């Protein structure tokens, strides 16, 4: 019986190791065919900004990895609207993440869903396991 796993991402990338560690754990968890969701709140929304270029800071740019999540059947990615707005960002500032739906002739669909804090609370309430990074 697959459990519902939620990975909560709350920290900006590069400044601390949390964002990269979360991504590693998500990819490992996905290999065990659990029902995986990701949420990005607070500074976690910065993990998904597009156009990241780490050439100048000598660190690995791991942001392209998010676009591979769809291939691992990780396609429920929730971004909290309030966190995004507070940071002067919109969905257009984030990567466009997609997945292909096997049941609909591999139609390409959006992975990111913009949700309010109240909607996210309901989604969290529905999970079996919540891991925070």
């Amino acid at each position, binding site marked *: 019986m697959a459990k519902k796993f939620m990975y909560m991402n709350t920290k*900006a990338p590069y400044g601390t190791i949390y964002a990269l560690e979360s991504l590693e754990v998500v990819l490992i968890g996905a290999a065990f065919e659990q029902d995986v969701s990701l949420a990005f709140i*607070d500074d976690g929304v910065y993990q998904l900004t597009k156009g*990241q270029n*780490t050439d100048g*800071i000598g660190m690995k740019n791991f942001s392209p990895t998010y676009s591979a999540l769809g291939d691992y059947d990780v396609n429920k990615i929730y971004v909290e609207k309030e966190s995004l707005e507070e940071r002067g960002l919109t969905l257009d500032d984030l990567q466009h993440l997609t997945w292909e739906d096997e049941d609909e002739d591999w139609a390409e669909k959006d992975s990111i869903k913009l949700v309010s804090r109240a909607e996210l609370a309901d989604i969290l309430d529905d999970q079996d396991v919540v891991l925070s990074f």
Partner: protein
Amino acid sequence: MTTLHTVNKSPFSSSALDNCLGLAKNGSTVLLLEDGVYAATAGTKSAEAIANADGVSFAILGPDAQARGIEGKLADGIKVVDYDGFVDLVAEHDKVHAWL
């Protein structure tokens, strides 16, 4: 005594920038680096606080802004420096106060 203040924490997860702005004197410079660069994003409360801090100069470390994908969203009036510019700022001020 002129001071270069450095802030390396996001304004949303730490009070480092607020503390720094509260105590920075006229003629000092605040350099935003690492996660501190998010403070300079246009349309945020922190960018507003920076715009209202009269008498204090602001600079941002370009490579850190580029790494985070926000160099196109910076508020006006903030000077972007590279690592050489960082060294110049340190040399131009009497001391460095690294806020945590």
